[in-house]
């Protein structure tokens, strides 16, 4: 009964989305009502607990919504002032073959962006570029969602990576090595998924000659950067090495004609790219300057449910750093874009008003869905529902648990939309199960982080960002259906590798069990 009730809101959400094909807003609304009712009537969450959990959910939603509004605003600006046209024409000049454009942008360029900014930025930047290059909307969205998912755990300058070793208290470098083993499988699987989305099995075969050598170079770079302890740069340097390798392979194999000159219209390529380059530059600058003290955050008291589930107090919840949160950085880049458009004499006040109106229309629906989903996630976590579900599954599966372990990383990301949050919820749990089973805790923790990484492609936050950026608002169920299979397939592969490492080989990373 407890197992069934603990997972009811999620089953209901998926049923409404995938079977009844309802919009995310409606599905989220019904799922959150059920989550509140189950938490109150079965899991002993009183009104104080509900108030705190729902308020936490809404403050977390604020954190994410600021990114979505800023990113859609930037995209609309770049689109309406035709800067995206200049970027696309130049991509075509350098990479003539559409399949290579698709694979390089969805699998590697999005991962480079994940290495720097993360938080959905790769999706909102790369999806519109692919669509304007002429690729199908749904294929572009699913390819980017899956393509960059392998890089989430080491991305965002290492934020998820930091979380997994903070919650498990295990050695940072050893967890890094364990994560790299699983990430090698994840990057290959996601590369092939992108190829499959592009053109089925024929293109999976065609992609082998690019994906395998590129992944080999990336895994060597990944291990080296972890060995050098440059934790924040693992994702970025690995993805850059992959991008360079794959482009070099393309030049060597296809020997394309060199472009005589760059394409330019009202803007040249540098001007068109300036807002995006600013995002990268400002993200790096603010990380170096460490201006984290200027921040807005929320304080929440701790509480205990009637069933005895303890929730700790939060001193600075959903911290929005003025010089660190992506929204202010994106808005600064928007400002740079506006200055450039004015200098290039293409600035138009009416066009700008149109940009603002389109942003409001696109973001309102997304915002409503997101508030429901994040509030549901917080109610489930703080009432002990998520914990009860995990404990029950671990009890039922017993010695076969390593095979099912990736599902928790994915579940954590699915309900919260974040690899970091998935690691917060399940990191310690996975380690405890590994200790109880007498298997290596580093491997299990590494698996948690990487499965959480691929699970981000199913996260409602990311999916809603992608649907807003691609104009597929209200068609999220289509995106879910297309993303679900490759994620579950990759989870199965990760589970098998985990089982082999832990039960068959009994690998001993970190020197302890």
């Amino acid at each position, binding site marked *: 009964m407890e197992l069934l009730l603990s997972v009811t809101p999620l089953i209901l959400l998926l049923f409404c989305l995938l079977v009844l094909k309802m919009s995310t807003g*409606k599905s989220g609304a*019904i799922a959150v009502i059920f989550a*509140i009712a189950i938490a109150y009537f079965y899991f002993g969450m009183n009104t*104080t607990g509900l*108030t*705190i959990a729902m308020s936490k959910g809404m403050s977390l939603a604020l954190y994410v919504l600021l990114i979505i509004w800023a990113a859609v605003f930037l995209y609309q600006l770049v689109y309406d002032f035709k800067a995206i046209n200049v970027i696309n024409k130049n991509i075509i000049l350098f990479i003539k073959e559409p399949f290579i454009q698709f694979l390089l942008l969805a699998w590697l360029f999005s991962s480079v962006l994940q290495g720097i900014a993360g938080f959905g930025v790769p999706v909102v930047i790369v999806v519109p570029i692919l669509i304007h290059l002429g690729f199908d909307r749904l294929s572009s969205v699913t390819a980017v969602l899956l393509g960059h998912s392998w890089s989430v755990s080491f991305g965002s300058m290492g934020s998820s990576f930091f979380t997994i070793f903070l919650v498990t208290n295990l050695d940072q470098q050893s967890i890094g090595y364990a994560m790299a083993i699983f990430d090698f499988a994840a990057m290959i699987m996601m590369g092939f998924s992108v190829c499959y989305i592009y053109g089925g099995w024929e293109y999976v075969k065609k992609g082998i000659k690019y994906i395998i050598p590129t992944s080999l170079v990336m895994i060597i770079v990944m291990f080296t950067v972890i060995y050098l302890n440059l934790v924040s740069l693992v994702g970025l340097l690995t993805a850059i090495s992959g991008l360079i390798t794959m482009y070099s392979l393309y030049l060597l194999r296809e020997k394309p004609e060199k472009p005589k000159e760059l394409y330019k219209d009202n803007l040249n390529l540098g001007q068109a790219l300036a807002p995006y380059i600013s995002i990268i530059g400002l993200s790096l600058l603010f990380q170096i300057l460490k201006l984290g003290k200027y921040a807005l955050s929320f304080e*929440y008291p701790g509480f205990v449910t009637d069933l005895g589930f303890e929730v700790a107090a939060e001193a600075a919840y959903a911290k929005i750093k003025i010089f660190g949160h992506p929204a202010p950085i994106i808005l600064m880049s928007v400002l740079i874009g506006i200055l450039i458009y004015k200098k290039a004499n293409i600035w138009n006040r009416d066009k700008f008003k149109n940009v603002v109106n389109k942003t409001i229309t696109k973001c*309102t629906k997304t915002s409503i869905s997101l508030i429901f989903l994040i509030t549901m996630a917080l109610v489930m976590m703080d009432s002990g529902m998520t914990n009860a579900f995990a404990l029950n599954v671990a009890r039922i599966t017993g010695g076969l648990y390593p095979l099912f372990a990736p599902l928790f990383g994915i579940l954590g990301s699915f309900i919260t939309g974040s690899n970091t949050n998935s690691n917060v919820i399940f990191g310690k749990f996975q380690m405890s199960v590994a200790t109880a089973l007498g298997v290596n805790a580093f491997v299990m923790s590494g698996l948690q982080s990487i499965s959480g990484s691929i699970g981000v492609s199913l996260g409602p936050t990311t999916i809603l960002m992608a649907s807003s950026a691609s104009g597929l608002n209200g068609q999220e169920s289509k995106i879910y259906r297309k993303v679900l299979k490759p994620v579950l397939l990759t989870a199965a592969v990760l589970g098998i590798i985990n089982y082999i490492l832990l039960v068959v080989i009994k690998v001993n990373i970190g020197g302890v069990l």
Partner: protein
Amino acid sequence: MIKKLIFLSFIPIFILLYLGSSLQNTTLGILGILMFIAVAIIQFVTKK
């Protein structure tokens, strides 16, 4: 229009919930929870 109203209604709900939790005021909290549920029901029954 209804979507914009639903979206805007989250602002007072958030204020009520946050004040309810930080001031440990049950009345404000319950009011916030009920308003949130009401908005979720409106969202569910709204056609577009």
